């Protein structure tokens, strides 16, 4: 049965370690995050597609003063985290955590770096949550 085109469905797929996008059956455009209504043709016949999980870094930062949620994971001024926007081979972009990059020396991080998807599982059982991340492909 088709999953509704909601954030809950997207997160459920993340939990299964799949980065899923929606594609408009009418105009064939792909959207990430998934959408129920196509912003291009306003068609509402969407289908889920699994992305390649491959792309390149489009924008990034290293955050020294973080969100409460990230601080709770142990990040702080002396232990910054990298986050950014990755453009997938499918042509769509998404915000994601960046892992395996030198957040303490962000001047070394390069836009255009080839990236691949990673899934970060946090918590157990009911509290389990999976976060989208990317890491250098090579």
């Amino acid at each position, binding site marked *: 049965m088709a999953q509704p085109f909601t954030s809950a469905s997207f997160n459920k797929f993340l939990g299964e370690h799949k980065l899923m996008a929606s594609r408009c059956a009418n105009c064939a455009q792909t959207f990430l995050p998934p959408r129920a209504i196509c912003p291009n043709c306003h068609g509402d016949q969407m289908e889920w597609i699994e992305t390649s999980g491959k792309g390149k870094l489009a924008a990034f*930062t290293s955050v020294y003063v973080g*969100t409460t949620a990230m601080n709770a994971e142990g990040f702080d001024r002396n232990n910054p985290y990298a*986050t*950014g926007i990755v453009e997938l081979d499918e042509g769509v972009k998404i915000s994601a955590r960046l892992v395996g990059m030198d957040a303490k020396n962000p001047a070394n991080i390069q836009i255009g770096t080839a990236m691949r998807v990673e899934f970060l599982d946090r918590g157990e059982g009911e509290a389990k949550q999976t976060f989208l991340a990317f890491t250098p492909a090579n």
Partner: protein
Amino acid sequence: MANRKLGRGVAMVGAGMSKFGAFADKASRDLFVEAFQEMRASVDKSFDPNAIENIYIGNYSSDLFEHQGHTAPIMADVIGLTPRPATRVEDACASGGVALRQGIMAIASGLYDVVLVGGVERMTKLPTAEVTDTLGSAGDTLFEIPAGFTFPGFYAAIASAYIHRYGMTPENLMTIAAKNHANGALNPKAQFGVTIRDWMKQRIEAAIKKGKPAPTWQTESDFLHDDSANPMIAYPLRLFDCSPITDGAACVLLVAAERAREFTDTPIHIIGSGQASDVALHDRADLTTLRAARVASQEAYAMAGVTARDIRIAEVHDCFTIAEVIASEDLGFFEPGTGFKMAEDGVTARDGARPINTSGGLKSKGHPVGASGVGQAVEVWKQMRGQAGARQVNRAVPLALTHNVGGTGQTAVVHIYERK
């Protein structure tokens, strides 16, 4: 693009603002009273507050900042104007500019002749970490915030894309901060109304006074490159690239243009208004421009029948230094990729060809988010009427512009003002 026209002319006949800063003892309503009183005093001819027929209040999140919802009727109440309609307008940091637009449309529609537009935000009551989260909720909490984005983080990512494409350096951004602090030092309402050089000197004097080793900064550049003085917030943005957390309010009085002379012989006409929305940052084709600001400004220029070249001064939404660079390009003042060079060359300085943020901008004046858009109109009012004191620009200002952004550009609103 549609060329929209107002149903009738709208003029600003009064404007005022509270001191911007951090005030432990002032609730939103107290700040709003302060702004209203200054606005009232600014009306040149007799003005009875009872003439006000309708009220719009820009406010981002009194709910989260102060645990107070339903803010607009409270503002009507504290100035004795119930039972007039009072409506809160929320579009994140563009709330004030969008409230102004609502006021303009209410008059242009013919429904009201006299409308009060205010903006207010009290941010400093909340601990900084919670302010970070509250501002973050102006981003997409389902798809952006879980990635760890903060507001400085969003604009830092925009800066990374801009740097990559146009070869700007983080040092170029320091020019923007230095300029805005130089302007803010001449604005008695500014939260951090001090030049970076004086700030540096104060820090050295304070260290000596405490018997600590005096910092060895020789220049502003030394100071701005020192991690202890100017810590990294979100690479490449440091503390002095970020607007502060601020309490403040601002207020303007709008009337039907045909009635403006009842209030003043020097009204400021609002001849252009444009607003646009946009998708989340990651969904945009180009990360080095805010499409909503481009669309809003094109609509405002078309309505006003003027071009970017005609604008003498502009107050732009410099929530971060990179935002001012991009604004100066989105508004058509400079070509894409050249805004930072124009700032380096002094073009946007108070005595330059195209002064930007003579008030000190959000950077130095402060950024009480829901009030900022209205505060920009207050600066334009003063500059256009020759009442900006020590920071008055050295030429006539027949046309001015304000540019107010919500989020990372999911909202932008632009207004054009004329002194006829």
